[in-house]
């Protein structure tokens, strides 16, 4: 079966972001970018399905500016077969991405679509669920284990109290949690090979989707800084401070 993976280019997870002085967003110029960590897990899972013989083809899709192609190349280097780039410079919000992906899915007809559970920049945690809703497909969100059982998929999910298991019909949408797998590093030969793999270019217009944002971002500010605290010298001093100064115990 064909598996489609959606990947997003975000500021690298280890970068301390800086809010722009004019309050319009965070600084992205000259900042290290990388594939969203949850998307890496999605690619890894799809590639493992191919290695196990359950997936026949893995297609990586990214929506966004020209630089998103680098992220698709990373997915190709990890083992995806080909890429699709929906190019637009419009600020993309989850509903728009879900609509773009829906249009791509209708063309490609995959049986399983894997996304990360959230992007570490907007922290929305919406796109997979929205996509499932738009397609009328089931959703296996926050997945920590996937098992294909005939024409169904068994999904172990990370929920607040522990774990939950659901069986969903195929075709389906899956979103990955951190513990689904450990993504591989792309080797140099595979990075070289990825340069020869095809990336199809599409536009929102060609897909018949209006990607304009529905949420207006009025301003972005830095959160209030915590007052720097004090180091204590001993456990006794710590307990004394907690009891008599902070009064929390």
């Amino acid at each position, binding site marked *: 079966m064909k598996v489609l993976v959606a990947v997003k280019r975000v500021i690298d997870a280890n970068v301390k972001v800086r809010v722009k002085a004019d309050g319009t967003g965070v600084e992205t110029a000259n900042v290290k970018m990388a594939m969203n960590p949850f998307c890496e897990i999605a690619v890894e899972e799809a590639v493992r399905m191919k290695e196990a013989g359950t997936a026949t083809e893995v297609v990586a899709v990214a929506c966004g500016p020209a630089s998103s192609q680098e992220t698709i190349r990373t997915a190709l280097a990890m083992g995806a077969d080909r890429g699709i780039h929906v190019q637009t410079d419009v600020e993309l919000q*989850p509903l728009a991405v879900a609509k773009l992906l829906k249009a791509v899915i209708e063309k490609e007809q995959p049986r399983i679509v894997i996304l990360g559970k959230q992007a570490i920049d907007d922290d929305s945690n919406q796109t997979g669920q929205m996509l*499932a809703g738009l397609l009328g497909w089931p*959703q296996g969100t926050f997945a920590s284990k996937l098992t294909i059982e005939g024409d169904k998929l068994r999904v172990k999910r990370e929920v607040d*109290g522990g774990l939950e298991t659901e069986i969903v019909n195929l075709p389906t949408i899956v979103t990955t949690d951190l513990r689904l797998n450990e993504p591989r590093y792309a080797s140099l030969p595979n990075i070289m090979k990825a340069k020869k793999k095809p990336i199809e270019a599409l536009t929102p217009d060609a897909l018949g989707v209006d990607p304009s944002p529905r*949420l207006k971002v*009025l301003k972005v500010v830095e959160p209030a800084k915590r007052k720097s605290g004090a*180091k204590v010298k001993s456990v006794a001093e710590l307990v004394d401070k907690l009891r008599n100064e902070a009064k929390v115990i």
Partner: protein
Amino acid sequence: MTILVLAEHHDGAVRDGSLHAITAAQKIGGDIHVLIAGQNAKAAADAAAKIAGVGKVLLADDAVYAAMLAENVAKLIVGLAPNYSHLLATATSVGKNIMPRVAALLDVAQVSEIISVESPDTFVRPIYAGNALATVQATDKIKVITVRATGFDAAPASGGSAAVETVASAGDAGLSTFVGSELSKSERPELTSARVIVSGGRGMQSGDNFKLLEALADKLNAAVGASRAAVDAGYVPNDYQVGQTGKIVAPELYIAVGISGAIQHLAGMKDSKVIVAINKDEDAPIFQVADYGLVADLFTAVPELTAELSK
């Protein structure tokens, strides 16, 4: 304006997290209706009717809602949506699973994890693991919102006297089946609502060593949490995880033991009232947010702290 709040319930009671979403609804203003979906959920609906500020409780009692599968619950909410200006849920694993599906089916955007209400259409939410706060305005007719519980106080669970109205089930979407759950059992307070939390990180070195934290937690009637490093190393189950990808907590006292303080962890706990860090590395970033820092080996400091609290 009428606001529908999807409440979560368990054993005939409304879950604490949902009480915070009701407070957020009050800040938006207007009539507040609470939806209880479940199987044999009459007792939960009666409990919801007593919550202060609730105008009406809608009860959808059907076996298809027993496991709160997104496919079925979203179908129910979408059917009710035309009567409402706002649809709210708490940003728990249940709310996060269901609400974006609802939003897509209504062709509206969702505003995730709001921490403040500026006006009926404008909200503040953290982005980049809490390193920036975005003020966003929702332009759609129906606003679909998830609420970060720690951003709002809990509505009082008593004092209200709302009517309970039964609504028809929307039936089974026929897309998914619930198999079962493996829930962590704990005698301690629930992590997201605990007044005190003791959390351990990679510095704990093993799952067995978490007993040290449990002994301390018992003294403080605290919940036990963990960093991602401790969960990934298998010391504790994943639902202990505090951080950007785990639970968001804001207790009165958060004691971070053997946790370095990566930005992803800070995202989950930096709104705690008082933060204590115990770490032998005096340059650990956790000390930059800690109100009280103790540079010490946790294996001596934690038992000493437990003993000191017994005095």
